């Protein structure tokens, strides 16, 4: 194998699993991903967050060679993402957003097909092993189309790992799946990561973001934030008060108009009042704190507060 070059021989643990710089992609005149840099360490669970159309799927597709970047360069598992897509494909498990297996084939047939495509040997033993590992043994002869959402997603994950990939790219794997199935799914992901597999997973769920080692927040095709969850929260420079009491809707309307308050969002029975300047924020809420009916409390800004604030800022910046 000469195509891989010296990078291809890098042992796991040495180079980062993913390292890309200046990635860009446009479809026609629409810029989908712009000037994108990321680095993902081996064995990490890396979360991709961002609103719909923020370029998560496009980035994942560029990483595994399904799309050719318009600009930028980088390596995935030590292979050049432009020239060595074939090598990357052999070592990556990609779970598409939409169920990508054959509904008119059984669970086992699907796994065997994918296994054969990757040249898995010995196929029968590995298939049985995977069926057991993912709890699919009972359903191995069931048509994939008759599985429920949670089981389909399990099967899709099983198909992704049958060839023991070094990197898993999961595109919104838990969309539309019930909480219990989601929890089990994340347990499987953590088990895989513990075994040394690098996982890059896109999601809309904040609780899932908290399960990641590191997260990145994308909007409008740009990477806006990245780091561990505490880092991202601390780095946002946001200050937040939580308030509980009667008629929060009216309070929300009033608070929104005050200078010093950037954001007021409902969180269950409380409002989160957020600002970037601590003194200004405190001054703004001071008159409301005198009202005895409300209970005020200083809290950590939630990830959602941070994202929404960041998104609003980036949009304001883009509008200028």
């Amino acid at each position: 194998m000469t195509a891989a070059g010296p990078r291809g021989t890098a042992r796991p643990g040495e180079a980062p699993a993913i390292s890309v710089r200046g990635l860009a992609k446009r479809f026609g005149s629409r810029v989908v991903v712009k000037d994108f840099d990321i680095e993902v360490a081996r064995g990490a669970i890396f979360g991709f967050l961002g609103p719909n159309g923020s370029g998560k799927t496009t980035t994942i597709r560029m990483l595994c060679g399904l799309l050719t970047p318009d600009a930028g360069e980088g390596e995935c598992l030590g292979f050049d993402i432009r020239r060595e897509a074939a090598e990357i494909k052999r070592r990556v498990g990609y779970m598409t957003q939409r169920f990508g297996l054959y509904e008119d084939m059984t669970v086992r047939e699907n796994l065997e097909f994918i296994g054969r495509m990757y040249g898995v040997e010995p196929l029968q033993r590995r298939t049985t092993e995977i069926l057991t590992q993912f709890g699919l043994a009972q359903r191995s002869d069931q048509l994939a189309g008759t599985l429920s959402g949670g089981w389909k997603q399990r099967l899709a994950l099983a198909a992704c790992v049958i060839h023991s990939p070094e990197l898993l790219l999961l595109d919104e794997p838990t969309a539309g799946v019930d909480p219990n199935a989601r929890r089990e799914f994340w347990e499987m992901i953590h088990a895989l990561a513990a075994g040394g597999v690098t996982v890059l997973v896109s999601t809309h769920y904040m609780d899932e973001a908290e399960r990641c080692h590191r997260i990145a927040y994308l909007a409008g095709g740009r990477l806006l934030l990245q780091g561990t969850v505490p880092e991202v929260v601390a780095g946002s420079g946001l200050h937040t008060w939580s308030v509980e009491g009667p008629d929060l809707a009216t309070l929300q309307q009033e608070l929104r108009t005050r200078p010093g308050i950037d954001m007021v969002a409902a969180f269950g029975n409380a409002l989160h009042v957020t600002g970037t300047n601590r003194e200004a924020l405190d001054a703004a809420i001071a008159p409301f704190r005198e009202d005895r009916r409300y209970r005020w409390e200083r809290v950590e800004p939630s990830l959602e507060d941070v994202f929404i604030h960041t998104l609003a800022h980036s949009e304001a910046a883009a509008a200028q």
Partner: protein
Amino acid sequence: MIRRGFSLSRFRAMLVKEFIQMFRDRLTFAMMVAIPIMQLVLFGYAINADPRALPTAVLLGDNGTYARSVVRALENSGYFQIVAWPARPADAEKLIQSGEVQFLVDIPIDFGRDVLRGERPAILIEADATDPVATGNALAAAAALGRTALMHDLDGALAPLQPGPTPFEIRVHKRYNPEGATEYNIVPGLMGTILTMTLGMMTAVAVTREFERGTMENLLATPARPLEVMLGKIVPYVFVGFVQVCVILGTGIALFDVPMEGSFWLLMLCVFVFIAANLAVGFTFSTLARSQMQAMQMSMFFFLPSMLLSGFLFPFRGMPGWAQVIGEALPLTHFLRIVRGILLKGTGWAEAWPSLWPILLFLAIVAAIALRRYRQTLD
């Protein structure tokens, strides 16, 4: 660089998958086998380009011997079946207008007397020619009756009234299909049209389905290479094509005694090339179509000219020049010549080759387009 090349095991994986999906879709599979039988029976038994015993009305102005001989001769030709003897011209008119009869034979008053006087009276045959195919042969047969119908009545002293002998004799000799059995033409023709229709459409749909159901993204994410996917998709349908050919040939021989003058293996070789050409067309369509529906429409777009311009439905030599040029570009045209040649004329390799290479050329061009169009990325 083994990894860049063609992987037999991945090709096999595609094959296994396609066969599983094909056999699981029982309805489609049954259709692919049933269509040839159905078409063959319909075309062979129900559809006849040389219809006989067409309903005829006779307006008899003269009830003499000669007039009746003419009527008898018409009936004996097999084309005319007298179903009505209208008394007045108006009634006769109604019959033909309503479509109750295809022909109206008007034998004038005093026909017999005029024949005897040598006045060469005219018998008028009015034909409902809305369907020219249906009436053509009958009229040709009727035209010949003038000479023969009264041969036996006009003898002895009346012999000079017989039309003089024509200076030369026209002897029609139909070769290869002396009885003019339409089934003999139908079987080779159907073999070609059915393969064109089902195979092109099936491959086009099979590939487009991967895009429509969202499985293509998954397939592209695996190390599969375009040639492996393309061959893996096509080969199962080669198998289907041969099943169809066997069904058509078997039914044709069993039901219609279609001869097999030439080499069976030469035929199979040509069938193979033809099947491959059609599958390549289907695959190319699938790289252009966005949905299964579009793929189907594109297949029809290819199928219709194939059927109309290949010489299956209408004689190739009767088409205008431009249509013949289009026809020559279609694989079906050449395939029909090959199959007719092998089945009916017993032609060999040397005679088949001039029709085989155009199909090979077509296959090469279309396959090249398909491979170029098939994207390994989603760009």
